[in-house]
């Protein structure tokens, strides 16, 4: 569906120089999207420069039309507030969104996300972050008998901003996490957002080779709602049916790219419907009917029920995704593994990557590396219920407490 703007092909006269330097007209594009994820299951926080180095090693898998990062455990001093990373295409929009936030939330702090001048990204928009608490009373919502579900409240407000306020898009809206993404190679996006200044216990990264939709800042990966983030290599051919199904549950797709549905599907299945990861994986990458036929009775009933109830959330087409939320990182491929995924462990750290070389580059001493089977989720979880938070004060990160803000 996508046009490859960066690589015009066919037609046109070729210059004598080009005929010499490229005698066969060989404009082969070897890109394919790159994914990387790292989680320290002990909760120890590490700098984003590690994932930036890893994803940069897969430079040739992207074409400069998108790169992005998601980090978890980034904002220990605000860890109980929801953090909105929001992109604005105009200044006026920012004021409109800030009005909206003040009406629906208790806003503790808002600031422009620090960036580095001279980074090689194209047309950066205005990107701010806000730390907010849910204040339903302001909306006249919720009561002692019918308390609101905070997360649902957040999702609804995110959809309102994305659909109701023009030129404003929420990059992420979870607690103690954030998404940084844009148009450029991932190493350039890392440079722009000063990713090395942040420390988190889990990170995912993406280098984009857009094949179906335009390369714009909102369309870069990770896609996110609440603290869910998704980076994706491949193509969700079932986007249309997935999107319609998710719309029935209040998720509106606005980012113009197929991957968006995976983030919303994860939220619906695993948060709202409380499915364990293993079953959610079987919704998105279900076993073949003939495999289901061979299952023992009890497993067959579950597999059949999932296909019957959630048929519209089957992700068709080739994909590898890394889905992340607070305390959990999941790698999953389509059931016939049409896109690559390699997993590795080193002590408490789980790595997921499109290529093993990227893992070894940042961690030469691995306990184990392996290639998972298609449709088999690889799951990393924090060993403690809450991330171990070390005293935070990294360069570039504002260390602010709630008191200072009031």
């Amino acid at each position, binding site marked *: 569906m996508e046009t490859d703007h960066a690589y015009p092909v066919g037609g046109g006269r070729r210059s004598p120089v080009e005929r010499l330097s490229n005698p066969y007209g060989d404009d082969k594009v*070897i890109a394919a999207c790159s994914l990387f994820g790292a989680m320290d299951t002990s909760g120890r926080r590490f700098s984003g420069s590690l994932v930036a180095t890893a994803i940069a*090693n897969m430079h*040739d898998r992207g074409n400069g039309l998108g790169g992005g990062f998601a980090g978890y455990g980034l904002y220990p001093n605000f860890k109980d507030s929801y953090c909105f990373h929001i992109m604005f295409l105009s200044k006026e929009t920012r004021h409109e969104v800030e009005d909206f936030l003040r009406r629906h939330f208790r806003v503790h702090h808002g600031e422009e996300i620090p960036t580095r001048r001279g980074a090689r990204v194209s047309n950066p928009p205005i990107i701010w972050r806000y730390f907010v608490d849910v204040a339903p009373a302001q909306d006249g919502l919720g009561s002692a008998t019918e308390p609101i579900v905070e997360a649902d409240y957040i999702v609804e407000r995110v959809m309102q901003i994305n659909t109701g306020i023009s030129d404003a898009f929420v990059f992420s809206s979870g607690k103690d996490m954030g998404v940084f993404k844009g148009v450029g190679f991932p190493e350039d996006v890392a440079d722009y957002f000063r990713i090395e200044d942040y420390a988190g216990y889990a990170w995912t990264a993406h280098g984009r080779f857009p094949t179906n939709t335009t390369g714009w800042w909102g369309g870069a990966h990770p896609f996110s709602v609440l603290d869910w983030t998704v980076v994706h290599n491949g193509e969700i051919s079932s986007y249309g049916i997935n999107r319609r199904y998710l719309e029935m549950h209040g998720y509106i797709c606005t980012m113009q790219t197929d991957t968006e549905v995976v983030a919303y599907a994860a939220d619906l299945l695993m948060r709202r419907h409380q499915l364990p990861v293993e079953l959610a994986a079987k919704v998105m990458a279900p076993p073949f009917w003939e495999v289901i036929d061979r299952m023992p009775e009890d497993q067959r009933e579950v597999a059949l029920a999932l296909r019957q109830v959630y048929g519209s959330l089957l992700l068709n087409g080739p994909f590898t995704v890394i889905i992340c939320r607070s305390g959990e990182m999941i790698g999953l491929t389509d059931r016939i593994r049409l896109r*690559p995924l*390699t997993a590795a462990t080193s002590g408490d750290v789980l790595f997921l990557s499109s290529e093993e070389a990227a893992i070894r580059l940042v961690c030469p001493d691995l306990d184990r590396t392996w*290639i998972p089977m*298609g449709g088999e989720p690889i799951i990393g979880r924090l060993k403690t219920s809450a991330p171990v938070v070390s005293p935070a004060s990294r360069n570039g990160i504002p260390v602010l407490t709630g008191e200072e803000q009031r």
Partner: protein
Amino acid sequence: MADASADIRQGRIVEVNAAGLYYKDLNALLRKMADGPDGQDVAKIVLRNVAGQRYIATDLDRPIEVEIHGTPGNDLAAFMNGQRIVVYGNAQDGVGNTMNSGEVVIHGHSGDIMGMSMRGGTIYVRDYVGYRVGIHMKEYLDKVPALVIGGTAQDFLGEYMAGGRIVVFGLDLGPGECHHANFIGTGMHNGAIYLRGPVRDYQLGKEVGVVRPGEGLWSPADWDFLRKCAEGYVRHFGGEVEEILRGEFIKLYAKYLRPYGPLYSWRN
């Protein structure tokens, strides 16, 4: 162009620190050392700190050995013609893509589509391999490519296989454990796949038939070939030839020359 840090040791072995070297520069350097006027006495190139550089050892004109430490990138030995590669580590996807001749030895596992469209030569893998290994391998007269895999394989092994030999020893399978691959030999229309260790009927593609030792279609030449593969495997990775050959083998052959003929033309 980054500093290649190349220095010649013992006259004929060249060592290259590939850290940070872009794949095009690394391959240009290999070409220079293998085929350039200054490199005529080089017999072996040792690459250190390899980290994902693609197409290593493609487009070299002279037989030479390349020893790789680290993780080579995709399409290692693509179109390779007569060289020898030894990898101390795992390989990624696309090893031996359209390889014409030579040998690749991988001391680890190897990723997807290894041996894709391979035309000749041999690839040895100590451990297991990924999806669609041997897809559309071919053969012609005395050019018969072979893949010798010590562990098991993932799905679609030998998919659309048009020639050559794939041998999977299954040495990493536990007692009674079946091979992992499903859809083995789907669309296969020539060549042969040898599997050592148990496999269930449903794991096989619809286009393959099964032959067991002692049956009419199993010939002494099959054992000769398997012995050669086991000897090669043991030479590279250790183990016992006889122990490998004592295992239970089956051979998969293509039942149809044109399994999908009717799909693409009215004439079968």
